[in-house]
């Protein structure tokens, strides 16, 4: 079995053409990234705003709860049935599918951004205000950089969800790696089905690795605790005379 999957995956012919692995991979990645990007453009500013002002906290909490309960396939079919007839051509499938992906990616990114700002040390925020920073300066100089680790976790979680769900999007004709699963199932071509699943997993893993690297680059070491091990020179070490047994009251 494993040999057959390996054979399928390494067959050069399967990689070429408009419906080859390479094209599907790029399709899948493209949809996913666009969906995450759009979701991030909505969710990050909204999350920062809610975290900074405290207005609309309930939105984050409820949205995060609701998101866990949404069956993505159901939502997708619903969106296609509802929106599909209103548009013509490719857009009839692209728009509802894209919309669903965006909707799914928003909650984790939103809660990440919100929780990140919410979790900023109140003393640091207080000190920032006390030294004369205005609201937007506090956000830019303190809250956003301190929230970055959680914002990135939100983006990574959202991305994983989108890459997984984009697989289902093949059902409504969106293309991407999901095609191999669907086509494989339709003709009982198990190696093809399994290969599709493996490719999705590999894509998800690689994208997450790239995002982890981005995270390591943009998050301050002061927050992650990954300090350069600097051997600091302590001028007092070894020079201190033996302490007198008597204590000098100044």
């Amino acid at each position, binding site marked *: 079995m494993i040999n057959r999957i390996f054979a399928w995956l390494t067959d050069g012919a399967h990689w070429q053409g408009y419906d080859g692995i390479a094209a599907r991979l790029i399709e899948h990645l493209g949809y996913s990234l666009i969906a995450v990007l759009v979701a991030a453009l909505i969710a990050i500013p909204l999350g920062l705003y809610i975290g900074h002002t405290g207005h609309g906290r309930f939105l984050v909490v409820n949205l995060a709860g609701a998101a866990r309960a949404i069956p993505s396939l159901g939502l997708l079919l619903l969106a296609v049935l509802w929106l599909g007839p209103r548009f013509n051509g490719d857009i009839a499938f692209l728009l509802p599918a894209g919309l669903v992906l965006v909707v799914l990616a928003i909650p984790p990114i939103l809660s990440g951004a919100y929780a990140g700002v919410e979790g900023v*040390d109140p*003393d*640091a*925020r*207080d*000190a*920032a*205000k*006390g*030294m*004369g*920073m*205005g609201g937007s*300066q506090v956000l830019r*100089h*303190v809250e956003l*950089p*301190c929230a*970055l680790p959680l914002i990135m976790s939100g983006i990574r979680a959202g991305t994983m969800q989108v890459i997984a769900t984009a697989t289902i999007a093949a059902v409504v004709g969106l293309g991407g790696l999901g095609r191999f699963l669907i086509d494989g199932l339709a003709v009982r071509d198990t190696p093809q089905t399994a290969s599709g699943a493996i490719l999705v997993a590999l894509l998800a893993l690689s994208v997450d690795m790239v995002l982890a690297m981005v995270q390591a680059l943009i998050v*301050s*070491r*002061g*927050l992650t*605790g990954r*300090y350069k091990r*600097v051997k*600091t*020179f*302590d*001028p007092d070490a070894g020079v201190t*005379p*033996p302490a*007198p*047994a*008597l*204590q*000098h*009251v*100044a």
Partner: protein
Amino acid sequence: MIRFDSVSKHYPDGTKAVDELTFEAPTGQITVLVGPSGCGKTTSLRMINRMIEPSGGRIWIDDQDTSTMDETELRRGIGYVIQHAGLFPHRTIVANIATVPRLLGWNRARAEARALELLERVGLPAGFARRYPAQLSGGEQQRVGVARALAADPPVMLMDEPFSAVDPVVREQLQDEFLRLQGDLGKTIVFVTHDIDEAIKLGDRVAVLRAGGHLAQLADPAYLLAHPVDDFVADFLGKDRGYRALSFQGSPAFSLTQEQTVPLGATPAQAAGAARDGWVLVVDASRRPLGWIESGRVKSPIKPEMLHRGGTVATVGGPLRNVLDAALSSPSRRGVMVDDEGAFVGTIRAHEVLAEIEERARPELEDQEARA
């Protein structure tokens, strides 16, 4: 000078955190607001830089009504230090300290140079510059907090329990260094604490507040200890007031008793030869006292770990309290006195210090009204 003119803060829930508070914090001095938890100290302090808006009254800084000033400008001219420092965890120490200069538009090089200068000023090694706050102890973070507040050289400093969260030994160090720093800088400081000992030690003037932000008494520490205005202030000041008041009285030129001393490594015979009443003082090469030792117990050349621990040392001319404490804490009953360089000059006994105290006029009893 900072002047509170019938300042009140009433919260919507009916809490009167501060009620009609009137007092002055003179320029170049440390004014301490002290009182039990919840009495309105923080609220009073934060109304100065308008982190909290007063609901009544006016606060003046050098004859400018703070309510008419631009909030940002007001705060840039006021250094603000809080209990847990509130350092920015994502910024290096040097970047933390340089924050306000950068906000004021200084270029990076100038702001960093200033930050490094302040790092040294507050007693931290230059090697800390590129570290992050999480790599520092609480006491070190607090020093950085002070440095950050001083960065743009504001004339006014507000400090809210800046040393409360560190252990007692470090706290004392920070207090001593704070006083030294203030000696150089002469800022107008309002300092909040719930610790009366800290208030007495640091304050040029101490304002004791009671619940509801009412001023119970405002006086210099010596006067406060001698003349608590009511039971509340007396209770709050605590016991040992007579003893603690000696901190504010310098000592005269006592005639000290000369002592024969021995160096480390002295033999049992040398120790026995130098001892008086069974005890001998061990000094180092610069004649700085190291500790007492009982000559009868010296069986081998004297090593540091054989010395008696627990005695204190007082400086000639220093506060009477220190001189008395040196005598009271000494295992030989002879208090060790040193000169300004820390070199041993002689010993004094408790009854000699007490005789001096008994003979003294009580200056703090005079002109009460003038000092109140």
